[in-house]
């Protein structure tokens, strides 16, 4: 299964009880209301275990995790050792 398919499958099984037809790759997970407050950490745990990654605290941002598309892009980049978006500390 491709990265995208594994991610789509996990989200649809975990949050949509298998009803994956509703989930488009660029749907915002936070705006959709599918993913609740513990959903983020469940998703992070799934990604770490499935793709053998250590996701840093400053990578847990909407740019990397807010849609199937963004998650797939993030995982691919991490697997290839490429730069990924990190926490944007703009105000002290």
């Amino acid at each position: 299964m491709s990265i995208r398919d594994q991610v789509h499958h996990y989200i649809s099984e975990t949050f949509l009880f298998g009803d994956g037809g509703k989930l488009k790759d660029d749907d915002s997970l936070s705006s959709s209301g599918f993913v609740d407050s513990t959903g983020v950490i469940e998703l992070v745990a799934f990604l770490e275990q499935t793709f053998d990654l250590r996701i840093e605290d400053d990578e847990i941002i909407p740019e990397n995790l807010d849609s199937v598309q963004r998650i797939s892009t993030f995982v691919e980049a991490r697997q290839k050792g490429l730069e990924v978006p990190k926490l944007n500390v703009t105000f002290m």
Partner: protein
Amino acid sequence: MKGSDVQGTPREQFDAAREVERLSGWIRASVQQSLKKRGVVIGLSGGIDSAVVAALSVKALGAGRVVALGLPERDSSPQSLVLARELAERLGIEFGVEDITAGLEGMGAYRRRDEAVRRLFPDYEPGMPFKITLQSTPLADNRLNVFSLTLIRAGGEEESKRLGPQEYSQIVAASNMKQRLRMTMLYYHAERRNYAMAGTGNKNEHEMGFFVKHGDGGADLMPIIHLFKTQIYMLAHALEIPAAIIERAPTTDTYPAEVTQEEFFFRIPFGVMDAIWQESENGATPEELAVRFALAPEQVERVVADIRSKKNGTAFLRMPALRFDSLAHEAAAAGSEELGRSGRTA
């Protein structure tokens, strides 16, 4: 941070003295006419919310119809009980202490929580202070809501690790037994006297889901649940609540190490949050609020988004038990709306 010096709308337009009168009248009518009870029982945490509810209840019913309980357990700050007792004396109400440690031990609350902590920190021993904090900081950056556990070792050395879903859920579920057991004890005392149980939740907590369902969320009446934290401070001044209670930083008083409500959950000073929240409910845009509160529009957007995401993510806490027939009523209502639109009657 300029935002933390903000004085927002809730303070300017709120008439505390009038609200005191209004709420006292409402408590009296609720207890006597709606609930048909003889008085109220209140859990006093030593914090400002329960102090305000107690003072309002005394105004509404008289000191002879208000009973207060302190409900400490092993991890409670001793200061909580001291402040609660002083307030009860000041108000002239009966005050009792029910220590729920043994009950929690019997239910395995500490054991179940500690097991999860030990999975994260294998050297954790019961008695070592730890706290849970939320990493997000909507005013500063765009990180998502993730919790960390901070262990404080002998000598004061602190170590923090991000909580995984199993550990987080187990720690919260076991810790929630504290609030639920308090509810159980308060209802014992209320029912024994044929009294009602007054809850002490406020709007910030309730709408953002910072409460335990059927724990501190369980009560017969909720006199201040419609009020922002900043408005509750104004009521406290109007009711002459002791300064020590007003000045104490809101605390969770749940974990073995002191953690403020701001560190644990809200992440934004109440003055800033309440002002932005209320104005945005009134239709103000992020740009307008940014100018008003000397913040950047992105900061305001993140605060509003954070409030919205916490509300949406915790909607289940505010739902009463779902019933099949409520769906049937909705379907019937939708059907009759459609008939109405087409001009036909049912």
